[in-house]
């Protein structure tokens, strides 16, 4: 609380100083414009340099107050904005951790594809179940994002398209039982590309 008050007091003093300096400068300019020897009497009203400075100070201070009041957000708006910001940041943090998990799963299955000595129904079944799991997770990121703000915070469309293409390729081999046509280097290369796409998607998330 005390630092807050101290900060406010400093800000207030600076504003007063700026208004005072601006008023003096403007008064000087006005007096220069209308000749320095201007001196008007309207009965009790007297226009001299000091009064000009005070008048300009009041006008500038009033305008600044009106501007600041207009800019001041209502408490409700502020609360709403803070909640939305917190939800967005939580979503981004959660997505970063989800994407890291998906990448780890994909790396595991890629290594298995490259090193497994036997291409059989068990390996294909493992690959397909991993891809089903990661596809559901990538899709859920989009659904959560749509529910959250409707804004396009994270765009993993390329990853999802590539993901579906690899899954279809694996499903085709599994359905046709054509294990001898399984191109392990090509499939793992596609998985590498998918991991790169997910990293691109990840790098666009800023908290």
């Amino acid at each position, binding site marked *: 609380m005390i630092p807050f008050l101290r900060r406010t007091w400093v800000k207030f003093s600076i504003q007063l100083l700026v208004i005072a300096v601006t008023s003096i400068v403007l008064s000087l300019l006005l007096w220069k414009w209308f000749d320095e020897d201007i001196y008007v009497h309207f009965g009790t009203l007297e226009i001299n340099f000091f009064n000009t400075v005070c008048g300009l100070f009041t006008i500038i201070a009033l305008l600044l107050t009106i501007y600041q009041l207009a800019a001041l957000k209502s408490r409700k708006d502020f609360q709403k904005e803070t909640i939305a910001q917190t939800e967005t940041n939580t979503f981004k943090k959660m997505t970063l951790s989800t994407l890291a998990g998906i990448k780890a799963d994909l790396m595991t299955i890629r290594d298995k594809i490259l090193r497994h000595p036997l291409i059989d129904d068990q390996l294909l079944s493992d690959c397909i179940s991993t891809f089903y799991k990661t596809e559901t997770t990538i899709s859920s990121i989009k659904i959560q994002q749509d529910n959250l703000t409707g804004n396009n915070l994270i765009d993993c469309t390329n990853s999802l398209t590539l993901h579906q293409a690899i899954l279809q390729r694996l499903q085709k081999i599994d359905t046709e039982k054509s294990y*001898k046509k399984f191109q392990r280097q*090509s499939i793992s290369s596609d998985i590498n590309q998918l991991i790169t796409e997910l990293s691109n998607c990840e790098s666009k998330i800023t908290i």
Partner: protein
Amino acid sequence: MSTPDYKSLLSVLLDATKANKLSWQRELTNSYLYFSLTPDNSKMLLDKYFAQEEDKEIPCLNFSIFTGEGKLVDEIVRCDSSDETEEYNILRDLYFTVDEIVSTEENKKSAPIINGITESLHKMIAG
């Protein structure tokens, strides 16, 4: 890669390998056999594994070509099944030739170490 191109490349590779013009190596982590072509560092890889065909496990050979940056250019998989025996045999000839050369090289490197251990053991028994 079309079959004629593939056969022609494998035939040249086999000849170059037999003439000891190519330096094949074994990638110990994956048991791949590979060699890198200079100056662009493109890599050719030979790999052996098995694939399920009905209730049998048939041997398969994989021949892949990568660019210097590790990007896959082409991949050929041929298995020892009735419909592709001829193409599998071409790849198998290359694989076994390479495997023999690499194993001979490896034996040459390990022979002094094994001899050293044998001598040490002899000395231990005698002493």
